């Protein structure tokens, strides 16, 4: 009897994570949906006017801004991260991997505000003097985000390389291929799904990151037309205005969160589908 009770109790506890996801979706959507219904879906996601005091809530510039910054960040993250993962998986000596991997994972623990701060005091001035413009820009945001997603990209793609059966590599080497040819033609394709998952999860982190982006993006309410111009992302829109928003304005911020939630859900679903073992 007691054992049964414990089992039922644990079952309930086990569903808490799922319940939380639904609770989050429920509360965000309950605040956001009425506002979107009021201004119209099209005017919400396709209008470029965001003037809460005049009742105008168009988030197109933020959607474009978020996508632009995220895609560029993933490009930076992919070039650096995959190079790192390939080097650690195939070329670096074993002992160094044991030291380097935890060190890279420590990068993930550094608070995002610290990344943002480094961006403000080092990267932004550098961009301003080297390329011109205000410095606070799409470029600055995506470089900082690219660095921030490195641990995710490296850790997951390294696991993907390690999961490739050693027989593949041995077979290729036995045929006289060099280690690079083997890595590029055999192990890379075999690890493809894991690498794609790594990049998509990195993308999820980049699109959801808030504080670091606010600090370096400049947050202007215009369509970003150049990499050197300031930009406002979906996340920064929420965080910048939550402090003082009320009424429809606050609802519009929840609606912004709703769009973000949907984007993340789509990305995670893709990551889940690519990594699902084929049966």
């Amino acid at each position, binding site marked *: 009897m007691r*054992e049964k009770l414990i*089992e039922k109790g*644990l079952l309930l*506890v*086990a569903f*808490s*994570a*799922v319940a*939380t*996801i639904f609770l*989050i979706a429920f*509360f*965000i959507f309950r*605040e956001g949906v009425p506002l979107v219904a009021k201004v119209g879906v099209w005017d919400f996601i396709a209008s470029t006017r965001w003037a809460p005091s005049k009742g105008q809530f168009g988030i197109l510039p933020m959607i474009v801004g978020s996508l632009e910054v995220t895609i560029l960040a993933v490009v930076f993250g992919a*070039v*650096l*991260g995959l*190079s*790192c993962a390939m*080097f*650690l998986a195939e*070329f670096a000596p074993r002992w160094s991997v044991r030291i380097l991997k935890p*060190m*890279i*994972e*420590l*990068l993930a*623990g*550094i*608070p*995002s*505000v*610290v*990344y943002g*701060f*480094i961006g403000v005091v080092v990267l932004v001035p550098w961009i301003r003097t080297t390329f011109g413009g205000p410095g606070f820009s799409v470029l600055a945001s995506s470089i900082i985000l690219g660095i921030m997603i*490195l641990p995710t990209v*490296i850790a997951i793609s390294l696991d993907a390389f390690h999961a490739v059966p050693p027989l593949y590599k041995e077979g290729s080497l036995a045929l006289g291929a*060099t*280690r*690079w*040819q083997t890595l590029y033609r055999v192990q890379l394709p075999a690890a493809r799904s894991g690498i794609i998952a790594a990049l998509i*999860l990195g993308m*999820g982190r980049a699109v*959801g990151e808030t*504080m670091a982006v606010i*600090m370096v993006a400049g947050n202007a309410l215009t369509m970003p037309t150049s990499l050197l111009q300031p930009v406002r992302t979906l*996340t920064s829109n*929420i*965080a910048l205005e*939550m*402090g003082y928003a009320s009424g429809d304005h606050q609802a519009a*911020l*929840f609606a912004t*969160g709703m769009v*973000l939630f949907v984007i*993340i*859900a789509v990305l*995670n679903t893709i990551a*889940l589908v690519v990594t699902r073992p084929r049966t």
Partner: protein
Amino acid sequence: MIIKPLAWQRIVWVALAAMTLLTLVVLFFIIGFIASKGARVITPEFLFGMPARMGKEGGILPTIIATIYITLLAIIIATPIGVGSAVYLTEYTRESAITRIVRFGADALAGVPSIIFGLFGFILFVIRLRMGWSLAAGGLTLAFMILPTIIRTSEEAIRAVPHNLREVSYSLGGAKSQTIMRVVLPNALPGILTGVILGMGRSVAETAATIFTAGSSLLIPKSLFDPARTMAVHFYILAREGLSMERAYGTAFLLIVAILLINVVAYSLMFRLTRKMR
């Protein structure tokens, strides 16, 4: 010109090594830069003094206290739920629809951005449950945020406990719950602690989820329902409003030291655990 395969390999080796080096340089640069500018700000007055003029002067004691409170609150709430979920997943079910749903929930929750947790915590705890900006609202929000980390690491730790230990307990007449409490969990403890400590690290570092749930009051919180400002939030406000660069560096340095210590403890636990397995 055709490059020979082995020459190619050498070129690639250099390129990849350079990229790896660049990544490490970035890591050391961030830590070194903050340390070089922040370490000298750390004095007893800075650590144990009260802030003055919005943080422009004085110390950061209230933010240190708030960070400790809110982090403890988060792990006190999240640990039983996370470990309970893991126990159910590993000890009570086989692979089934239920395990898939629970795992999906944990994965999905892990992918939710912290600003969404902030919105959620704000509307549910601060507004609907009338907690106001408070330690309680912040701690609860962070608890949900670190739940997936604790579930996943505890699940792995419990799975790694050798099966024959359980069988010995059963053969001595131990009930399932006794076996779990006295045999499985003690053996999985280092792994579970790793998850809890990683969750602590995330709570300490978090800004977006805490600023809208715990608030940014600079007073020392006296009860669960007092508002509070964590170190990360304090640092964000100092840096963003340009109140005091010196104090911003000092706070950032303290934050990084705290996080590095927390993570080093977590990794050394994990390392000891995996070595024991072999």
